[in-house]
């Protein structure tokens, strides 16, 4: 039994445990124990991974294991990780852990909430550890459906509408992806759906064009590919806090991860030829998301559109197809995952106190909730890309990497995308000025309290992550970029 499978087993065990326990205390006990174990497991994985790499192991995937599952279709349960998956697994653990604390007071139906939450986590972890196309797709889908009930039952605002829209768009794109996956397998003539084998069986060029489009689109919609991002603002705004965190922080990264792991790695020729079209779309998405965020007054919508902008930047960087830009893309996934989770957590906490998310109805909250206020400023600065915080590292790497491409088209696009940083400063600083500073808008807000211990724990954990990546980026960047070296080599 490979220890990677524990990442899937643990959430499943948590689901089973949740079925048994009764009181609220026990439910939280299960969740805290489970999610802490997951954090420890990821820490162990990262440590172990670095140790093995340092000892000179240069295999593209480490800790691999496979088990025949559905023989007639040569489907295996195959696991293995490279630097990118290790980093993403660590991110997932952090978000799942903090999400648990943020949902400390969730009601009603606490047990059911965490059941779906754990199923979502199972899908996410499974997706990052598997190397088989079918299993990968299975976990991908597993992560999507719990969102429907999580938003529909525990959400706010037009929750039924948002939940249905999000589910249909994401499941719809994943069905397109399904065709792409079948095409890759049957088109390549490989004898298994294992990615490491499919890499060595590239398809004919015409087939690649067709299936690359399907696959990239399929994953891209989850990565908020413009103009198919419309599920994201509504979905994130209606979702309960922990779900927004997990969805924007981790689930949207599944899209970016899938894009390079499947679409680009398995169909390099098509990626090279078709990237301009998708680059244009993602480029527009980057700028459009930022501008759309300016117009919003609802804090969640501001962050949701900012996420659209940043997730498009991830896809943008991946499509630039240089080692630096792709490393930047993963750094951006990581950094954006932490930042957006922090944002959503803070917005949820503020909303829980003021019962409004409109920045026009709040003001001067910094005096009343200094802890939440300062944390919000840190998240904002990181989002803009202030040096020393994670946003800077990621965006810098992306833009430098993108500019490495010699041709005019890509350079012009890169310059256009850079403007999103400036626009980003506008909406972040504007909202901070509006609702954190200035005079108190609403007298009732004067009596509100600052964060509780469980909220502080979540916030501090996320800020620590942001600071760590911002201050010591080389370690993380090296793990990531090593994997891309081998990936791009195979592609060429």
């Amino acid at each position: 039994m490979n220890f990677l499978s524990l990442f899937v087993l643990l959430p499943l065990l948590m689901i089973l445990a949740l079925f048994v326990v009764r009181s609220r205390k026990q439910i939280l006990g299960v969740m805290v124990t489970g999610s802490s174990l997951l954090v420890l497991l990821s820490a162990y994985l990262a440590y172990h991974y670095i140790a093995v790499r340092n000892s000179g192991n240069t295999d593209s995937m480490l800790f691999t294991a496979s088990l025949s599952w559905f023989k007639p279709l040569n489907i295996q349960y195959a696991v293995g990780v490279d630097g990118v998956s290790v980093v993403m697994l660590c991110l997932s653990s952090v978000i799942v852990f903090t999400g648990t604390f943020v949902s400390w007071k969730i009601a009603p139906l606490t047990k059911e909430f965490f059941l779906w939450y754990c199923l979502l986590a199972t899908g996410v972890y499974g997706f990052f550890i598997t190397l088989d196309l079918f299993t990968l797709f299975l976990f991908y889908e597993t992560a999507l459906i719990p969102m429907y009930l999580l938003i529909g039952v525990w959400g706010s605002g037009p929750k039924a509408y948002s939940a249905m829209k999000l589910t249909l768009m994401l499941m719809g794109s994943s069905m397109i992806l399904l065709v792409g996956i079948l095409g890759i397998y049957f088109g390549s003539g490989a004898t298994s759906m294992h990615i490491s084998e499919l890499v060595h069986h590239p398809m004919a060029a015409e087939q690649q064009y067709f299936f690359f489009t399907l696959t990239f689109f399929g994953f891209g919609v989850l990565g908020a590919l413009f103009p198919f991002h419309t599920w994201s603002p509504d979905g994130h705004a209606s979702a309960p806090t922990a779900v927004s965190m997990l969805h924007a922080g981790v689930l949207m990264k599944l899209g970016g991860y899938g894009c390079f792991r499947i679409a680009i790695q398995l169909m390099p020729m098509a990626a090279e030829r078709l990237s301009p079209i998708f680059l244009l779309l993602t480029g527009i998405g980057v700028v459009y998301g930022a501008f759309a965020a300016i117009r919003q007054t609802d804090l969640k919508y501001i962050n949701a559109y900012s996420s659209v902008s940043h997730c498009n930047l991830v896809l943008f960087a991946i499509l630039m197809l240089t080692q630096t830009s792709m490393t930047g893309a993963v750094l951006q996934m990581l950094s954006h995952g932490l930042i957006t989770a922090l944002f959503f957590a803070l917005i949820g906490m503020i909303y829980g106190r003021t019962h409004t998310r409109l920045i026009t109805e709040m003001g001067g909250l910094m005096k009343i909730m200094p802890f939440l206020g300062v944390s919000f400023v840190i998240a904002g600065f990181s989002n803009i890309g202030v040096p020393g915080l994670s946003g800077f590292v990621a965006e810098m790497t992306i833009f430098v990497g993108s500019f490495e491409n010699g041709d005019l088209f890509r350079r012009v696009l890169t310059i256009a995308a850079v403007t999103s940083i400036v626009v980003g400063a506008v909406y972040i600083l504007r909202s901070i000025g509006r609702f954190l500073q200035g005079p108190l808008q609403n007298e009732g807000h004067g009596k509100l309290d600052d964060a509780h211990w469980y909220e502080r724990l979540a916030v501090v954990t996320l800020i620590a992550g942001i600071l760590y990546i911002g201050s010591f980026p080389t370690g993380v960047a090296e793990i990531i970029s090593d994997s891309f070296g081998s990936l791009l080599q195979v592609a060429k």
Partner: protein
Amino acid sequence: MSYFDNFLIMCSEVSLLIVLLILLLFDITAGKRGKQYFQPVAILLFALHTLLNFVPTAAGEAFGGMYQYQPVMTIIKSILNVATLIIFLQSKHLFESIKMKSQQGEYYFLTLSTLLGMYLMISSGHLLLFFIGLETASIPLATLVAFNKHCKKSAEGGAKFILLSAFSSGILLFGISYLYGTTGSLYFSEIAPRMALNALQIMAFIFFLSGLFFKVSFVPFHLWTADVYEGAPSNVTSYLSVVSKGSAAFVLMTLLFKLFGSYVHEWQTLLFWIIIVTITLGNLFALRQQNIKRFLAFSSISQAGYVGLGIISGSTLGMTTVIYYILVYLFSNLAAFGVISAIENRTGKIEIADYNGLYQSNPKLSFVMMLAMFSLAGVAPFAGFMSKFFIFSSAAQQGFYLLVIVAVVNTIISLYYYLRVVKAMFINQNEQPIETINTDNWNKVSLVICTGAIILVGLLGFVLDIIEKQSFGL
């Protein structure tokens, strides 16, 4: 081979016949007290029959090739057996009212007779036996649809079913007569090599298939489905949608392979369009339904279209995935019908709007219903996801990518209407939800079996492997 050996090869039919006769005699002879135990006796006897015929034996033929046996038939018959068994477990509600109580014996007898007909259809090697099987499967089914004689809709459904079914049988018989006229034989093995592309045989082919498409309810032969499903008692509806449809789909596939193997391009083209229309129309009509039984009727039409994806591939993988699909569909659909029949028989409520807020009063039933909906929609990680994935891959393997794309687009539409039911139960608020229903123990057992299967069948890889070992392609 002695005369007696013929019956050994037909052991599944013989043992079913024995069960059927015992139940008939029991119904006639038992007194009032004995009849209280009718359902347990029927279930136990039938479970015994299912177990005895569970393991495939060697292939063989009886009565000079009229009856043909292949191991894959045991698998499909076992699937039908399990489905029938689950339906028996769910049937107690049906006889709770005093009016219906006296009809208990007929219900089990008629159901098993249709099952016997399906057995014969599956195993026939001769068109005459095939036709007898088809009629044995259809006529008692019509009486079952009209089973609730105190309900007008039920009678209406029965009349519709018998008329249309007789009509389609007529067309099929007409096709058979042409086949006999042009080839001079009724044996499958003799007809197949004599099939050429001449006008008479093409007509025979079309007529023959129309009769079968009616049974599977492919569009444009689907018009009876919704009315009959709505009128019939819930348990009969579930029998129609799972057992009758499943056996018909399997028979359609084997006949296309055995009888019309040389027509492969023709029937692939034909099926291609029929599948597209079936899935799409079934889905579009399902979108607007308010009555949950009509809703499931249309959803089952589009499900039949998905089965078509496996049939059209004509490969071993195709047959494997079709059987697997039927297996998973059985559990998903019966889980849904178990809940529906419990609610219908207790409260008489069959509108989707009645299910609003069901989770508040009946959390367990809602949970089962949700799993069933997810599995029918093909949502991971439940069994329906795997069966959809496999059936799509069998079509993709043969290059039917356009068909797969149409199917996946329809999957999204279907997801919407399946989620509507989930939304009603979990998200919609209702001041007066359906009262808490304490369903009987047999039904509980059936729901537990279905739930377990929806979660586990997809994860157990060997199920597909076992089916594949016995399947065959063109």
